[in-house]
Every structure is written in C-alpha cells, then in structure tokens.
C-alpha cells in the first residue's frame, strides 16, 4: 500500500514540476519540449531510485544483526 501511495506522490510531483516549468519559462515549442523531457527524466530517475530501495526492503531475507558494542 505504501508503495502505490508514494508512487502516486511522485507522479503528482512530476506533473506539478512540468506545469511550473511550462508557466515560468514558456519559450517556444522546441524549448518547451526540452524542458518537459528534462522534468520527466528527472522524475523517472528519482522514482526508480526510491522504488528500488523500497521494494528491496519490503520482504527482506536477512535482518540487521547488531555488532558488539565495545
């Protein structure tokens, strides 16, 4: 449940960022496309990073074994 929820948060952040770039720097069609590409790529990269780390910890095969305190 937490996974899908946070994924939706990432999607929302991506949409808001694209809208912001479209509003702030509207400089012609090719520049707009470029900005959109950047935002989408960044969102996908960040989401992938988070998703990988989250999925890896969902059902772990090993647990932390504390080391001896000296």
């Amino acid at each position, binding site marked *: *449940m*937490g996974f899908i929820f*946070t994924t939706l948060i990432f999607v929302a952040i991506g949409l808001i960022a694209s809208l912001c770039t479209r509003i702030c720097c509207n400089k012609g069609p090719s520049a707009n496309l*470029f900005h959109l*590409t*950047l935002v989408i*790529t*960044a969102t996908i*990269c*960040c989401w*992938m*990073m*988070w998703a*990988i*780390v*989250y*999925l*890896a*910890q*969902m*059902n*772990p*095969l*090993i*647990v*932390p*074994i*504390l*080391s*001896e305190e000296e």
Partner: protein
Amino acid sequence: MLNDDKSPFQRTFVNQVKRCAEMSRKLRFLKDQINKAGLLSSALPTLQSDVDLEALESQLADHEHELIEMNANSEKLQQTYNELLEFKMVLQKAGSFLISGKSYESAEGRELDENVYPSDYPESDSTSLLEQATQSEPSNSSGLRFISGIIPKSKVLFFERMLFRATRGNLLFNQAPADELIMDHVSSEMVEKTIFVVFFSGEQAKTKILKICEAFGANCYPVPEDLTKQTQITQEVSLRLSELETTLDVGIRHRNAALHSIGVHLSIWMNMVKREKAVFDTLNMLNFDVTKKCLVGEGWCPIFAKPQIQEALQRATFDSNSQIGIIFHVMDSVESPPTYFRTNTFTNAYQEIVDAYGVAKYQEANPAVYTVITFPFLFAVMFGDWGHGICLLLGALILIAREGKLSSQKLGSFMEMLFGGRYVLLLMSLFSIYCGLIYNEFFSVPYHIFGDSAYRCRDASCSDAHTVGLIKYRDAYPFGVDPSWRGSRSELPFLNSLKMKMSILFGVAQMNLGIMLSYFNSLFFNNSLDIRYQFIPQMIFLNSLFGYLSLLIIIKWCTGSQADLYHVMIYMFLSPFDDLAENELFWGQRPLQIVLLLSALVAVPWMLFPKPFILRKLHAERFQGRRYGVLRSSEMDIDSEPGSARHHEEEFNFSEVFVHQMIHSIEFVLGSVSNTASYLRLWALSLAHSELSTVFYEKVLLLAWGYENILIRMVGLAVFAFATAFILLMMETLSAFLHALRLHWVEFQNKFYGGDGYKFKPFSFAALADDED
C-alpha cells in the same frame, strides 16, 4: 573551399595575408619592447577611427626602425659605460698596490740596475716596484713590468694558477676585490669582480699573460704609476662616467616616451591587424569566376539565419556602393552539412561533454538531451551522501553567484574547467543530496528523518540482537534505507545485494533507452531496413536475457522468495527443460524461460544475416537501368559545379558490408553482457564512497572525540575536515564523474550514436580575440 586545388601561394590574396603577418610580427616586437622596459601598456578605450591599413603599415615600419636604432645605441653606450667603470675601479685599487710599493722604496733607498719599461707606462718611478720585486724574485734583464686588470671573482683562483704555471713562478700577483657589483656583458648580470695586478718580467711572459687574460675574459687597463697621473686619469674617467650616465638616462627616457605613445594604440592596432588577416584568409577561400570580375564562395549557414544573412548582404552592397547586388543562392549539396546545436549557458557544458566523444552526425538524435539529467543522476548514485552533497552544492552556488566576475577573469586551467562545469556541478550536487537521503548517509551517519526504523528487538531484553538479529515488525521504511542497518554485522551483505541489483536495473533501463533512440534515428532517416533487421532483434535479445533478469529481481523482492537468481539464470542456459524446484519464482516460469531463450537465439542470426543481402539486392535494383547508359553526357555534368563534390559510389562491396554487419552484431551480443556488468561500477563506487566515509568518521573523528583533551579533539577535527575535503570531495567527485562519463560514452551511446559529424564553425570576429590570446 573552392580553392582546394591551388596551393596556398597561388591564392589571390596571399600578398595581403603576408603583409598582415608582417605587421603583426612588428606589433609583437613592439609589445615585447614595451614589456621589457617595464611599462604598463595602458589600453585606452579610444574609438576606432578607421586607420588606413597602408598608413598603419608604414607607421609600424618607422616605429620598428626607430626602436631598433635606439636599442643599438643604448647598447653601445652601456658597454662603454661598463668599461669606464671597470677602468675606474682598477685605477683605485691598483693604484694602492703601487703606492704601497713606492713608500717602501723611499724607506729603503734607491738601488737599481737597468729598467726597461713598456712604452705605455712612461714613468720613471717604478724603481720602488723593482726593489720590492727583486727582493722576492730574481730580476730579468728586460726589466719588470706589470699588467693591471679586472676579472670575475669566480675565475681568480684558476687565473692565478694558470699565470704561475705559464711564467714558471716568475711573477707577483696582487689582487683586491672590487667594491661594487659590475655588469658583466658576457652574461649580462651583476657579478663580483676582482682587481688584480700582475708583476712580471720579459717579453714572452707579457704575451703569455695577455693571452691568458683574454682567455679568462679579464679586461686589462693601463694604470700609470705616477700618483699625480693616477689622480688625473681618475678624475677624467669619473667625469666621462657622469657624462655617460646622463646620456644613457636621456636615451632611456626618450625611448620610454616613444614606447608609451605606441603602447596607447597597440592593442587597437593588434586587433585591427588580426581582423584584417582573418578577412583575407577567408577571402582566400573564395574563387574568382571565369570573367575574373566577381568572387564566388560556398558555405554553410543555419536555415533560421537566412533572412539575417540576406539583410546583411544588402547592407554590404549599399555600404560599398557597388553596382551589382550580391547573389545569395541556396544549393543542394551531396556533402553532409555540419552539426549545429544552439545551446545556452546551462546546456553548453553538457553538449561539450557529448561532443568530446564525437560530434553528432547531421540531424541524428542528440544524446545531450538525456545526458543533462542522467549524467548527474548516475554520478549521484555513486556519490550518495547528503552531507557531501551539501558541500558540493555550496561550491556550485558560489561559482554561479560570482559568474559575472569570474567569466571576465583569466582563470587557471583547473579553475576554468570547474567554472565551465558549474551547472553540471549544481545538478550533480542536487541529485547527490537526493541519493544521500535515500542511502541515509550524512557523512556516513544515518538519521531517522522519515520516521522510526522498521526493525526492533524480538523481545524486551534485546538478548539475541547480537546473534539472531532484530525483527521487522512494520512496513518498510518509507523513504530510503532503514537506519537500523548502519553498523550492523549484516549491513554489507544487505547493501551489496541491494546496490548490485539496483545497478543492473539502471543499466538495463539506460540501455533500453539507447536502443529506443536508435529506433527513432532510423525512423527519422526512413531507414526501415534498420528498424526491421537491427532494432527489433536487438530489443528482443537484450530484453529476453537482461530484461528478464530485471523482472526476476523485482519479483524476488516483491515476493520475498528464497530463489537464487544466479542459479536461475545459469540453469536457464544449461538445462532449460529441467524442473525448477526451489528456484521457482512464479507459475509458468519454465515455459517462459524456454521461450525467451529461443527468441534470444533466433535474434542473433536475425541481426546478422538479412541486412547485407537485402542491401545488395537494393543496390542492384537501383543501378540496374544504368548499366547500359554509360554514354556520359557527362562533360557538362561533372564540371558544372567546380569544386563541389558530386561523386556517386558505383561499387557495392558485399564482403565489406557483410563483415561490417557481423562486427556490429557480435559487438552488440557480447557487449550486452559486458555492458550490463559494467554498470556494476555504480555499486562498486558507491560502496567505496560509503566505506571511506565510515572510516574517516569512526576512526578519525569519533576516536579523537573520545579523548577529553581539547587539543586532540581539534587535531582530530582538522584531520577529518582535510580528509573529507581532499579525498572524499575532490578525489571521489572526479572519480565518480569519470565513471559516469564512461557509462554514458560507451554503454549508453554505442547503442545508437553515430558521432562522426563535424561542428559548425562560423566566421566570427569575437572568436578571433579569444583565439590568439
């Protein structure tokens, strides 16, 4: 370039270019002179009153001539001055030798045989000398004489020994050091000199001594023995010296004034000459047409700039009052045009990173679009620590804030690279902060920013926390790596597994992106052959093997299965029909694996064989009709556009094409394994960074902090700061930068990038100024 066939010396404007080169040589000479005289060339920002080039030329010739003369004169004067100075010193010191001898004589009385003196020393009172000399050495029948002079101090010893040997001991050598440093004109630096007087007898001895003096570079000056004569000559010499000094001074001031007046205009002149030379160089690339009445030139220009160019040409026609307008005609060309990407300050650095590997072919997909984000992101995966990220961010912000000031300064090469990449650094630092939050490392210390850990002790006493470990009682930590992992004994197995799988997933994703870009390239160039026989088998091959591996990774994570992925992949190849037993991750895995294996096996010949055969068939079809039409109406055809290349490739070398395709396919197949493994460097470097960070934190800072002594704590803090700054911030940044760059250049770009274009280099006056400095 229409004039490729003419040598550089035949071109029309070669004389003008030579004159410009000569003028810039003169200007450089003048600049050198100004620098040597230690004057600051004040570049007055005067208006460019269009100085006529011819007038400038003659002016420069005059200046140069004048300056050379002045220099020669002052050289001569300086030399004379030095000689007189030496003479004066010799007079002073040698005089004292002779005087002491004289006083000795008057005490002893006169008693002498015959004295024959050399004609330049016409005095009669050297009996004193002789007296002194005869008491130490046997006197010769030809009488005693002396030579006085001056020699650099370093050579005195050898000089003396040489003289002794030459005259077989029949000499008296007196020396005294000079009071001040003198300019030695051999080495033109100030050296210490020693004044000497050599008493000897005999003609042969004299010649020998003179020769030795010459060999050692000692200057001999005649010193009169008479005291009054000495003072007289000394006075004369001093007078001449002061005269010379004033003359030299006046000369130097005159020269400096001349240089100063030149220096004011120098930079303007140099600029002008540079521009003229560039213009003539470019004119040389043009060609006179048949009637020799007009110049023809070919070049490239961006389509969006066409109206501007036409406007500029109209202005030029108007300004130069020519009767015929300039004709601007768009041509078709067989050559591939140059590549021109319009960049702003932000994207410029990324485009240069991509161009450093190879400039894009005309109109192919530009990887820089994705590199803007993926490059800093992959850097951050290897660098992830939000404490270090904040330091990098501060550095980047400082560079960006002082952009205006730093861009006009002349920076060292390292600073220049750093400044040019300031926006890259900015993005790198932002992504590093993000990845640092995910890895949960702040100078290697984890924090509970996003809530409590998902792990806790199994019971209240935590008795088996050190043996069996904690237990997971909640959902996974919402953002990033759980802070309980840091410092535990099973930290490394867990993190290694996580990061290795992460690297594979990123690698497969980026490589797929690369192959998709090759699809879009083929689509744009209408190359359906490439789509059908290259893109599709490549996609099938990569994804049925490594895409499937990524799928298995994700399924294993989601289900928490104990299956060993190494074994799954290996047995998929070795024994695909066997039962999977404990390696089964999902229902239908075995048949799916068999299907994927078969498709991968089919994809290899699919990308290898069809394309060369089809190319040969297409080529045969295209030139089928032409085989009989060899009657070339071609004298007109080939010569109609002199110089612009129109050649048709009539041959199709099948074996060459086939080998090329084979190499390409093998490269892809083997490369898919090696490139996927290459992405594991993301794991390796992030592990190294994390371990270094941990070591510095635990073994330096915590160790030093454990002591109560404030001095040790300070030292520990300082060592920690230096180690972090130099090793982690500088070395690791460079290292991660380099590896991210390699991943882009090789693993990402070899899936689609041609990179054999050339850059569009327009003629520009602004670029000139940067060029030659």
